[in-house]
């Protein structure tokens, strides 16, 4: 039973890690907390839902479609909502991103209604049985997608010229500009990459997670906790943070009243904030 919990926890954790990475991609280079991040995951979940429900396409086609749509949303978000407040006080940044998030929730509510949705013709169905473990195929694929996407991101950051430029901006904006890095393009790129993370997470989540307009904020909280646990500015940290969040959710959901697992998460978050705000690997 414990192994089962751990397996589920790690798989979900991998998805949380991906969502957290998306958040980190904006927080690092742009020094901005995207309060709409969870709602953007919600949006990509609905896009994936519509691909399956209305267009009747499989996930392999839904993925690129979602990428394109989320990428466009990301660019529009950057141009009209993020760029004007890049150098504004934190409150202004919180308001525009939070406002955007609420706007997305409102649109989802208006067009799709408040009901919980699931995709009926999922690409991944059934259960995998390995040793004594039973894992839903959809969850398994989500976990794998998380790891693969994360690995690609990591390789991009560490080994590509653009990736290193992004890291440079995250560490020292002025210095990066001084050595000729085009900040504007990098900001837009960071946002698009963040949207890709959101897209992958949303598409794979939609295969097994409930989809509803306010599914966003809890995801944002968990992504944030993952970032805090792992430490700001650290990509491997964000991943480990995500896994820890996933495991905590799985274990506490089993050990106690499932409704309390959010409370446990929150207590952990508050404790970390009070005693170890730098997290495990952060600056």
């Amino acid at each position, binding site marked *: 039973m414990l192994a089962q919990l751990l397996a589920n926890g790690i798989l979900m954790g991998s998805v949380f890690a991906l969502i957290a990475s998306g958040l980190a991609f904006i927080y690092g280079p742009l020094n901005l*907390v995207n*309060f709409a991040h969870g709602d953007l995951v919600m949006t990509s979940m609905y896009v994936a839902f519509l691909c399956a429900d209305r267009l009747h396409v499989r996930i392999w086609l839904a993925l690129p479609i979602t990428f394109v749509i989320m990428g466009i949303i990301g660019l529009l978000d950057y141009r009209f*909502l993020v760029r*004007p*407040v890049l150098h*504004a*006080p*934190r*409150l*202004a940044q*919180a*308001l*525009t991103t*939070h*406002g*955007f*998030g*609420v*706007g997305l*929730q*409102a*649109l*989802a*509510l*208006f067009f799709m*209604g*408040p009901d919980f949705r699931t995709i009926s013709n999922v690409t991944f169905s059934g259960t995998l049985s390995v040793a004594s473990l039973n894992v839903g195929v959809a969850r398994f694929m989500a976990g794998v997608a998380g790891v693969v996407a994360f690995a690609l991101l990591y390789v991009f950051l560490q080994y590509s010229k653009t990736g290193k430029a992004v890291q440079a901006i995250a560490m020292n904006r002025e210095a990066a500009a001084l050595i000729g890095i085009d900040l504007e393009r990098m900001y837009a790129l960071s946002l698009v990459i963040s949207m890709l993370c959101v897209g992958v997470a949303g598409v794979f989540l939609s295969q097994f997670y409930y989809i509803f*307009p*306010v599914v966003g*904020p*809890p995801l*944002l*909280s968990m992504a*944030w906790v993952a970032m*805090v646990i792992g430490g700001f500015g650290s990509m491997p940290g964000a991943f480990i943070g995500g896994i820890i969040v996933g495991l905590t959710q799985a274990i506490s959901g089993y050990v106690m*009243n499932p*409704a*309390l697992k*959010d*409370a446990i998460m*929150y207590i952990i*978050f*508050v*404790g970390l*904030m*009070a005693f170890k*705000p730098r997290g495990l690997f952060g600056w």
Partner: protein
Amino acid sequence: MLRSRGGYWLLLLVALVLPLVLTPSFFRHIMTMTLMYACMAQAWNIVGGYAGQIALGNVVFFGLGAYSAALGFVKFGLSPWLGLLIGIVVSATVAAVIGWASFKTSGIYFAIATLGIGELARTLFVSWRWAEGSVGIEMPILPSSLLNFQFHGARLPYYYMILGLLVLYFWIVTRIGNSRFGYYLRTISVSEIAAEAVGIDVLHYKMVAFVLAAVMTSVCGTFYNQYLLYIDPWSVFPSTISMMMLFITVFGGVGTAIGPVIGAAILIPLGELTRGALGGQGKGIDYLINSVLMVAITILEPRGVLQLLRWLSGRKERKHDQSA
């Protein structure tokens, strides 16, 4: 802010007389809710406007105030006035804990922590069977009296109570603005390093501002419970209420005493009328309008409608000078 002190008294007079002129209960309901939101926005204004701390989950104090009164009465037979005090104590404690944990680190932690507590409170109360969970709590009807904190029939006393509360809150914020506390908060809002260096115990003052806002919001929650006589986790803990507190203040004029009042006076009736006009189809449209307005005002005129009004009256004055 307004041309003269007289301007404020005129506003008060209008507010006193309005429900006697606009008698339909729909209007009175909107006006009562407008005043209540103005109170909560005023509370947020202290921690968010003056002290500059981004509190995103103040609805938790609203809900705690509401539930304290409801549970106190329904489960223990306590007077709602006692429930009010309990709500205050609980809210102050929650604020103190969150504040203490997060104020030593950066403001973003505080923002996320407050965002989380609002969400958490709702999910906890939904699954808390003793507190009736999703079903909510219905208050037994008692005869109209101040002691019972219930009024039936025209329900006018509710309006005047909340108006009185708003006048009190307005006075509090004005006093803060002209006191050392206010100067200190505004400095903290801009540079905590400078604040510390000039002798301001930043942690202490942020805590005071946040706890004060929590207490002020909690009172509104208790009022709401007594006004509606029915609450459930979805109606007293939604993040939309937190957002409105923020938004009303910023829209009206953050960091000023009259800002939240202006903001509430425009946005709450707008929201209610939108919801009323669009009916069931309007699900979410009022939130959409709110979010568009919120983004627009942040980008175009972050100092809010108040600044626009000042600019307009400034133009009128200049025109007057030119023609004289």
